[in-house]
């Protein structure tokens, strides 16, 4: 070993030095040696002793080692040894196979040395600076040392890192280190760093942690990946749990969408490794963190919406119905689906539509309820199914109606197993856990839903042959009085309280059975053992509800009479004390915290979260109602009456105002329609007036024209009618004129010729009265004819 070579080498004979002595010598050498090699050897020797002589090295050498870190910055080897030594001294991890006592001592030692180290906050800053050193021998032990310091004194070390500039950012850079060991140990460091410190969680997220972690998870094979995936998931959980700012950032960064592929499992899911189960478990937890009922309703709602839109919910439902999925993953998937659908109508509607791949296909809800009322199923699974059912019905009046409908005579379907049938079966089975679960589940179908409370009163159950059917309400009270297990009775009493509260008709139904009130008073007044206290308290609550929501329709059980009964049989004080047994029960406040039914053991399954809310609401009211004297009650009645009168008057006036409003509205409409009509008419009138004016004008013009035309030539009018152009006309006229002139000319010539002919004829006649008369007669004609042709 290095130590022996380095330390014993210089020693000659003599007694073996003790560990403390050797360490002291080494410390001296670290402090006084001028040669780097000597100091390095000494630190190396200290390192090799640091596990065996942890106490001695820690007390004697720490200051010297820190000094080395400050002064020997240039030699990465010595830095590495010093960091390793400090790690061995401070870390409690290496100690294995120790009994409890020794482990505790070791832990104390680690805490003690950590305190010593961080006494000067500069030491942490120094360590952060050293982490910037890229050399593996420095960075790796540096990471481990800081992790150990954080493990031992988390809060203080976190505080120092938080205020050192760029401290957190520098540590985030470790995730980008190409050397896997450093990246992986960097993850462990960041896990410790982010534990319970929201400010650091936010800075880490700001430094793109989500992106990087999701990338690493994908690179490592998602759920099939190894422990690195697990470490990434643990860190993600640290960053998101109870940190609304980071959750918002995660959602806004669209990282929810990146969770979906995590849950893509195959058909055959047998033989999952333990690591895969762990990974998936953490992945499911991450989904739940984003939609937890303790988050602000708005934030949860937007994440739920996103999970439906990106198909994450659908993927989870596939796992729900897949075969071979390990039971604990199945259970956690049910819990996750529960919170993804809780109070979100769209997601609840989708869940209704999910079918199990059975033959024939059955709704997932029915298949799940089968497990809830099945004694052989694991307890946690049954709790998960109950939670799922509750979340399905939370703020879901439609869903409540659908479940109750499967029990009603008109809508019952005898051919297939329905949710209602399963619940009734569970309610009256021999298994008290089934009784409780079914009672609570049924109570959730009635939560804040008056319609379903009244509908459920119609449910009749067939009993043994020959006997008349009995109502569901009656059957519940029957079983109650038969003195079954506490769990069964508690379940039934919670159901009855939920059912009849805020529903006077149901109260009347309940009181109608003559046996019920005597049974309750007997239960409350008796002096029973510790086990029965809760049942007594619930009986008191039930009786109280019968008073508070009583509409006095049954003469024997009016408010007044029931109160007298309490006073006579139980005593007011006693009654109130018994009522107080509910909230004083040790399991009550536990159930009041969270909606999810989680119980350490089946026997402790007693309270339902929603029911604790009902108790909170009613306890005070009932106490007041019982304490009130009849006179006070009367006064109150009167006040109520006058108030009602006032209300009536107000209502009447409101009605009047409403009527008048309607009238005014009608009149307004009339007025506006009439105005439009008038406008239209006016428009027509003015239009017509202008038309008339136009016509008048035209008439005048025509009149004028007519006068002028009369003066002018009529032929012009004719030619106009013929539509001839004036130019053409003039031309034609000229031609005509020309022709006339020619005609005249010809006529004159003709008459001249005539005269010539006449004169010629007469001269001829005069010249010869011979036989040749005919010939001469024809000859002048020929001459004339010849002349005419040549002249034209």
């Amino acid at each position, binding site marked *: 070993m290095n130590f022996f070579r380095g330390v014993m080498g210089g020693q000659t004979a003599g007694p073996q030095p003790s560990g403390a002595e050797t360490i002291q010598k080494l410390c001296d050498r670290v402090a006084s040696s001028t040669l780097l090699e000597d100091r390095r050897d000494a630190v190396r020797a200290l390192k090799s002793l640091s596990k065996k002589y942890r106490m001695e090295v820690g007390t004697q050498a720490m200051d010297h080692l820190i000094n080395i870190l400050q002064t020997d910055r240039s030699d990465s080897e010595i830095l590495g040894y010093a960091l390793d030594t400090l790690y061995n001294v401070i870390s409690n991890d290496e100690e294995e196979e120790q009994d409890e006592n020794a482990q505790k001592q070791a832990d104390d030692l680690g805490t003690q040395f950590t305190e010593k180290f961080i006494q000067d906050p500069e030491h942490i800053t120094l360590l952060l600076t050293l982490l910037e050193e890229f050399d593996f021998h420095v960075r790796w032990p540096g990471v481990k040392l800081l992790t150990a310091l954080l493990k031992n004194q988390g809060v203080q070390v976190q505080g120092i890192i*938080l*205020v050192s*500039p*760029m*401290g*957190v*950012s520098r540590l985030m850079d470790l995730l980008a280190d190409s050397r896997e060991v450093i990246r992986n140990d960097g993850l462990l460091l960041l896990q410790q760093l982010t534990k319970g410190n*929201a*400010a650091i969680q*936010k*800075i880490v997220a*700001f*430094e*793109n942690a989500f*992106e990087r972690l999701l990338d690493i998870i994908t690179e490592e094979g998602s759920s099939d990946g190894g422990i690195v995936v697990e470490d990434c998931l643990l860190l993600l959980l640290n960053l998101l749990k109870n940190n609304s*700012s*980071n959750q*918002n*950032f995660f959602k*806004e*960064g*669209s990282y929810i969408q990146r969770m979906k592929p995590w849950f893509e499992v195959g058909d055959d899911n047998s033989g999952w490794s333990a690591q895969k189960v762990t990974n998936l478990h953490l992945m499911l937890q991450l989904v739940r963190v984003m939609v937890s009922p303790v988050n602000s309703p708005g934030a949860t709602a937007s994440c739920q919406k996103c999970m439906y839109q990106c198909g994450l919910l659908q993927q989870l439902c596939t796992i729900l119905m897949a075969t071979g999925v390990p039971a604990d993953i199945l259970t956690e998937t049910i819990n996750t689906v529960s919170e993804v659908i809780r109070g979100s109508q769209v997601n609840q509607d989708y869940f209704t539509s999910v079918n199990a791949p059975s033959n024939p296909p059955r709704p997932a809800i029915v298949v799940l309820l089968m497990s809830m009322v099945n004694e052989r199923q694991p307890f946690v699974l049954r709790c998960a199914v109950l939670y799922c059912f509750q979340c399905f019905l939370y703020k879901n009046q439609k869903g409540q109606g659908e479940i109750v409908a499967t029990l009603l005579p008109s809508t019952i379907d005898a051919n297939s197993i329905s949710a209602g049938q399963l619940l009734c079966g569970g309610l009256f089975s021999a298994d008290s856990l089934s009784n409780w679960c079914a009672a609570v589940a049924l109570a959730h179908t009635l939560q804040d839903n008056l319609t379903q409370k009244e509908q459920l009163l119609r449910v009749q159950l067939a009993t043994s042959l020959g006997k008349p059917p009995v109502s569901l309400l009656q059957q519940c009270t029957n079983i109650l009085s038969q003195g079954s297990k506490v769990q069964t009775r508690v379940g039934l009493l919670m159901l009855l309280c939920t059912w009849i509260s805020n529903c006077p008709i149901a109260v009347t139904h309940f009181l109608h059975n003559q046996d019920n009130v005597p049974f309750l008073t007997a239960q409350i007044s008796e002096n029973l053992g510790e086990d029965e206290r809760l049942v007594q308290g619930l009986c008191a609550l039930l009786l109280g509800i019968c008073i508070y929501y009583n509409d006095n329709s049954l003469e024997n059980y009016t408010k007044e009479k029931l109160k007298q009964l309490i006073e006579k049989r139980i005593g007011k004080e006693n009654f109130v004390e018994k009522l107080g047994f509910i909230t004083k029960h040790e399991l009550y406040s536990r159930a009041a915290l969270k909606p999810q039914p989680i119980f350490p053991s089946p026997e402790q399954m007693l309270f339902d979260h929603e029911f604790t809310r009902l108790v909170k609401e009613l306890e005070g009211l009932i106490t007041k109602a019982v304490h009130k004297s009849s006179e006070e009650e009367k006064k109150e009645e009167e006040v109520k009456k006058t108030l009602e009168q006032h209300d009536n008057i107000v209502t009447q006036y409101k009605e009047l105002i409403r009527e008048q409003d309607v009238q005014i509205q009608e009149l307004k409409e009339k007025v506006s329609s009439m105005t439009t009509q008038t406008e239209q008419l006016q428009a027509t009138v003015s239009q017509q007036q202008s038309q008339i004016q136009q016509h008048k004008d035209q008439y005048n013009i025509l009149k004028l024209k007519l006068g002028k035309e009369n003066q002018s030539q009529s032929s012009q009018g004719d030619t106009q009618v013929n539509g001839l152009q004036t130019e053409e006309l003039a031309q034609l006229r000229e031609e005509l004129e020309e022709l006339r002139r020619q005609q005249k000319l010809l006529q004159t010539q003709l008459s001249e010729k005539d005269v010539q002919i006449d004169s010629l004829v007469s001269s001829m006649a005069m010249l010869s009265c011979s036989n040749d008369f005919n010939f001469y007669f024809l000859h002048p004609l020929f001459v004339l004819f010849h002349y005419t042709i040549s002249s034209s």
Partner: protein
Amino acid sequence: MAYAYLFKYIIIGDTGVGKSCLLLQFTDKRFQPVHDLTIGVEFGARMITIDGKQIKLQIWDTAGQESFRSITRSYYRGAAGALLVYDITRRDTFNHLTTWLEDARQHSNSNMVIMLIGNKSDLESRREVKKEEGEAFAREHGLIFMETSAKTASNVEEAFINTAKEIYEKIQEGVFDINNEANGIKIGPQHPTTNSPLSTSQGGQHAGGGCC
């Protein structure tokens, strides 16, 4: 959901100047009159459009109190833009600007765009810091300046969007290394790669103009 770029902003300034209100007005378009002290840092986000591109703004609203100052410093390095806010009705918040600016310059990357904001411009009657003073301070330190009112929403959109425009221009000019996420800028998952040569060529023109 798809965006071309993602910018990280921080909002800094004295306590009570209205940093959280500015964020709330920008992300939720509402105003909360009661001063609810910010513990550490709170987160908000919104999508905007610049130059036809979808840009996602992730905004970290810091606590103004002195005791949180060291925590706030961790956010400078990773931010692309900072809104430095003072209250126009409180002179001291204006006087502290130098300290804030020193802090920011020291811890941020040198390209971080800083927008100086004089908030509560609706309270004109109680004004203690003139608009000209804010403008002068901004000019002197090379900041963009605006007066806003988180109450009336006046200029709130503009303050966030103008800061983004400035960052966007710097990207176009090639000043920012967009591949280094530590600068507070991230390219969107569906960023069209065909567009980038175009935008870089535009940027080249810009840069070229500067060179010549």
